[in-house]
């Protein structure tokens, strides 16, 4: 017994040393990364300052008075990762972490609701695949990540970018096809990305993200840093060969990658029972040679805890995990009302809405005294104001010009 205790103490001391060492290392690397980033993004800096001018013009009025709640929202958004390390505290996640996750969820919900309405009003070109209902997954996972960690998203990717720190203005500008967007208006909803935030892109190809995330994980392992990559995909994508291949390779090389399956029960309009013979995608994990875990994707704390374990395992060299989050999208495959297909019942949708992640989390935050109803309402109002400002900004922004057609894209010269 005494021996066992001694061993535990020795392990803890060793872990402390390792942690100190790795922190030192990462500080050095970060500054190196910053230099590289500064070199490679000179162009975008110029563009950003142009964008700032446009923003300043269009938002002169709103600069005058910034409501307190808005300041709180902005501060929380810019706050660094506040992950409660296991053993660091015996009280679970801090109030700051809880507030940050709530803010992520609420920002996603309001962004998507507004974007959906704009699409249905014909003000956004193309189709939007909305993330409403699934907010707990992106928020619970992203709470453990920094900008140095990579993610790959899906065609339903706005929520992932918002949770990763995406700002409303360049997001709406991208959706509107304007030059001030994250991809200078050339990516749109399904290809939105931002390297500074570690967002490798939404993806119009179902199952297209996991091989990219696996490649990013390979580069992290090759470079010897402690960064991880997360592949978000759905139950439909889990049948694609690209997902199997990525999972196989990640397990083979013990890559720092977490495969997050957002199982919302439908591959576009096809119920899961009609596209695969299993109900739990996590069952496939043992076939890849990695652990498979299921968690309640409608409970941000369940996602936060499960993702935390999987991400920590990946960071510390334990290899990949398949994390399946059981969740549900409230809106149609495309837009809010979609094409009016009857592939699911209103009763089913309403039953899932009763488990709404934001409502239940807000209720608990109030019970715990972390936030009051008044504070929650003020935050919501501030997000609403920020959205309208961003929409105005996007509307006022210019389209890319024809001479920019071949910038920021891969093409064969002369072809």
């Amino acid at each position, binding site marked *: 017994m005494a021996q066992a205790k001694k061993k535990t103490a020795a392990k803890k001391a060793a872990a402390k040393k390792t942690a100190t060492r790795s922190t030192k290392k990462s500080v050095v690397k970060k500054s190196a990364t910053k230099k590289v980033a500064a070199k490679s993004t000179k162009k975008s800096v110029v563009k950003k300052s142009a964008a700032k001018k446009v923003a300043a013009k269009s938002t002169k009025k709103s600069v005058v008075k910034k409501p307190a709640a808005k300041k709180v929202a902005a501060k929380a958004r810019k706050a660094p990762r506040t992950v409660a390390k296991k053993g660091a505290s015996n009280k679970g996640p801090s109030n700051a972490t809880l507030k940050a996750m709530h803010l992520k969820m609420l920002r996603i919900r309001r962004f998507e609701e507004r974007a959906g309405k704009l699409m249905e009003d014909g003000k956004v070109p193309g189709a939007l695949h909305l993330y409403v209902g699934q907010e707990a997954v992106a928020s619970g996972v992203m709470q453990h990540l920094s900008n140095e960690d990579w993610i790959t998203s899906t065609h339903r990717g706005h929520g992932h970018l918002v949770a990763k720190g995406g700002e409303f203005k360049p997001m709406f500008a991208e959706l509107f096809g304007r030059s001030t967007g994250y991809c200078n208006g050339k990516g749109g909803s399904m290809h939105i990305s931002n390297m500074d935030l570690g967002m490798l892109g939404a993806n119009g190809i179902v199952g297209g993200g996991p091989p990219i995330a696996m490649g990013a994980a390979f580069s992290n392992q090759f470079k010897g840093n402690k960064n991880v990559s997360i592949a978000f995909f759905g139950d439909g994508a889990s049948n694609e060969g690209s997902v199997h291949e990525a999972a196989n390779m990640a397990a083979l090389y013990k890559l720092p990658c977490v495969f997050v399956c957002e199982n919302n029960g439908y591959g576009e309009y096809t119920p899961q029972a009609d596209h695969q013979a299993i109900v739990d995608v996590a069952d496939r994990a043992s076939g890849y040679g990695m652990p498979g875990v299921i968690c309640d994707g409608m409970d941000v704390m*369940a996602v936060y805890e499960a993702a935390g374990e999987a991400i920590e395992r990946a960071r510390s060299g334990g290899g990949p995990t398949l994390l399946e989050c059981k969740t549900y999208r409230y809106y149609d495959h495309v837009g809010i009302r979609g094409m009016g297909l009857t592939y699911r019942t209103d009763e089913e949708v309403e039953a899932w809405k009763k488990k709404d992640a934001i409502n239940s989390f807000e209720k608990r935050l109030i019970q715990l005294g972390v936030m009051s109803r008044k504070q929650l309402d003020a935050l919501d109002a501030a997000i609403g104001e920020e959205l309208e400002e961003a929409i105005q900004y996007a509307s006022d922004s210019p389209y890319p010009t024809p001479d920019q057609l071949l910038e920021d894209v891969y093409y064969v010269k002369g072809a």
Partner: protein
Amino acid sequence: MTVQTIGIVANPASGKDVRRLVARASVFDNREKCAIIRRALSGAINAGGYKFAFLDDSHNIAGGALLELGEDCEAERVPSLGTSSVLDTIQGARNLKEINPIATLILGGDGTSRAFVKGWRDSVLLPLSTGTNNVFPRMSEATVAGAALGVLAAGGVSLEEVAVPVKIIDVEIEGESPDLALIDAVVTRDKFIGSRALLDGDMINRILLTRAEPTAVGMTAVGGLIRPTPEDEDAGLHLTLGRTGKHQVHAPIAPGLYETLNVHKAEVTPFGKVVEFKGPCVLAFDGEREREIQVGQTVRMRVSRTGPSVLDVDKTMHLAASRKVFN
């Protein structure tokens, strides 16, 4: 002698939670669960049982297994709510009670048996393990467990001979519906139910056990390593934990996961003695965080032997052998 019906319940969700990652627990896929049921059915049929009533689980585990048997048996499908949650098992137990099988095979962890008992308290169970931290269901080969059920259903032994009532913890929560636990009720400093698993010993305030077993894994081991309390002892064990403690126990709180817990006090709790405390806290039952308790909300817990009965497989098969049931 009329052959009685055997109940079958399989929990599709067991064996897949976060403990796969942190506690080196095994992954238990649903195909394996289906295979276990097939083996149990084979045992039951070869022992003379052929009537089954199965809970219609969302993954069709039991239904799929029975389908293969074809005309060898009579099978009745018992509807569940179809919510893919614990409510399916609770309501399914209530529905199964109306058919009144002589005993029910439960495939899952402690939590699955607990959910079943919430729906049908005075049931007769044969719990088989699939999950982790299992104390209530024992590891047993399904073929033999099924055979024991078959012997019972065909009248080779009587319930009085082979079914033993077990201890239970009743939990009263001020202003809310009551709850129960079969092995352990744990009070934690957590703020949320979250991923449900109990993975941090530092968060635990107190543990009330129906049995404390040094040979098991989970909260029962914490008590078992201080003061073993077997199932047949008419008392529970109440542990209070703190920053410092009289006992420093290095115990496996989950498979492969040892933690050192400071146990301030370990008291034998006679039947009927009430353990009372107030929130805020989170209550975990049989290894899973289940209820969030508000500030000032009162909780009362007590141990008694008013739980379900559990079929003794060893005793059943020894009696069957002595009575030459298979000869």
